[in-house]
């Protein structure tokens, strides 16, 4: 072994052949295509099942750890800081404060959206500081949204609720 290290300025070369999108669409290169079809169903688990079922009643539920005194949201069945089971379930309000927000022009596949959506991290009233969720904001002009804005959940009618996070249609500004 050990023929000795070469004195070269690095990287010595940039190997690899770049292709354009047209090379694929016009079949200029040899390639192979496959469309895997995988389907999944996720069980919601102990904490999330209760949370989702409470959404059907139009309520947000959190868990409480008596040791660190945190009201934890989204709820979990353990306190990850004290590493012990939670002590209680508590209802919290459906109002909150915008911590940060974005105006999105793209969908999950990076395709342009017809109408931009406002997405925000909202900390919920009644939970401990920084206990927030990501959700959509509507009924407001994008340029009027600000950090610290108070918002309220807009629920779907009870008959349309399915026990998913989208049972809250969006959050709207809370006047006054």
């Amino acid at each position, binding site marked *: 072994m050990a023929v*000795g290290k070469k004195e070269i300025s690095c990287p010595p070369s940039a190997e*690899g052949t770049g292709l354009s999108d047209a090379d694929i669409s016009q079949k200029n290169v040899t390639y192979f295509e496959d469309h895997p079809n995988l389907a999944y169903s996720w069980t919601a688990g102990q904490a999330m099942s209760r949370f989702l079922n409470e959404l059907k009643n139009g309520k947000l539920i959190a868990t409480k750890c008596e040791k660190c005194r945190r009201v934890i949201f989204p709820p979990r069945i353990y306190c990850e800081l004290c590493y012990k089971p939670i002590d209680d379930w508590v209802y919290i309000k459906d109002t909150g404060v915008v911590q940060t927000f974005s105006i999105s022009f793209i969908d999950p596949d990076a395709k342009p959206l017809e109408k931009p959506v406002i997405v925000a991290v909202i900390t919920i009233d009644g939970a401990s500081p920084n206990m927030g969720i990501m959700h959509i904001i509507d009924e407001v002009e*994008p340029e009027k949204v600000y950090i610290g804005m108070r918002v309220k959940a807009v629920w779907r009618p009870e008959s349309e609720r399915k026990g998913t*996070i989208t049972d809250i249609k969006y959050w709207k500004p809370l006047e006054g």
Partner: protein
Amino acid sequence: MEVEVIKGLKFHKKQDVAIVGAGMTAFKRRMLETGKELSYYAVKQALEEAGLDIKDVEMVVLGSAPDAFDGISLKEEYLLEGAGGCDRPYMRYFVGGGTAVFAPIAGYWHVASGLADVCLVVCEEKMSCCQPHPQSAFKYIWDPILDRPLKPNLIWIFALEMRRYMHVNNVKHEDIALVSVKNKANALDHPCSHVAGKITVEDVLNSEPMALPVRRLDVSPPSDGAAALVMVAPHIARQLTDDPVWVTGVGWNLDTTHWTNRDLYFPRYTAEAARMAYRMAHITDPRKQIDVAEPYDPFDYKELHHMEGLGLAKKGEAPILTKEGVTARDGDLPVCPSGGLLGVGNPISAAMGVKVCEIYWQLAYRAGKRQVAKEVTTGICQAWGDLMQIGTVMVMSNKR
């Protein structure tokens, strides 16, 4: 940032670890070569620089991000031969984007523990397989119950984090755009770059909006590419070269995956990872003791965010340092002299080529046109990933 020096760190390494060779392929949006072929190119370059043969390699560490990009489960087995992993202990490490520095950290364990004297680290990414856009694979990292029904795009997290950072530190978008301008210009000197160019702050501010405040030119592009690194024990390094580069500290840390429960303005995971690495490398004042840095820069604000996390700037100070030219290649603290992910390209784990490999080349004075103006002794590189909550840090020095 002052970090207390703690004596008696619970870490007894068997031997020091030197880096003696590195290699990388071109980074491109789409490449003809398969992942195996790209890995082969990078490994050949690294072994060539080190003056070693594949037969000298005792163990191989592979880093590669989600299988969903390649559409091949158990990607490590698929890449085995190209990565030179046949007939020797071979293991894949994966922490999302953080892999770019985490795979070399794993290589460090292999040598520091005394299990191997020569360890090869290979990082490969082929994002272009995923159609029509790799973004489609990213949607499966969101929480299936809380986040996915809202039809999120991965950019959302960054946009939310960037807004929070700007709000708390009172930073303007034009100050952040300077990072994109600097890195894309630096990348003009990198032979592997695919999005290098001379742009202006106005170009960034007027580029297509993705998820405001994030615009097209705030973001690094998805890329194909591979990178490799040779790590050896001191007695091997001595036979090969008079001036190897030593790994003096490593650190990694994860924050909660409930990302909406964190205050996004400060990367605590990076600060904690850096604290671990600094303790190992006996660094007490990073701003003074570190000569060159490669923080992870998939977005322009992220370079600033991570500089603050690494203690290279006080909270809110990184944009000021950038504005004053401190972070330029001829500045007092060159940051991303390679051109980073914003300029060279962002093939998730293969970003090792512009992070760890670049700091190695800078400290070995082999970076060619990219070599920073000042004299360098100590460098740092850092990556970030998983659900935006892992920090991985490596400190290197050309003095043992």
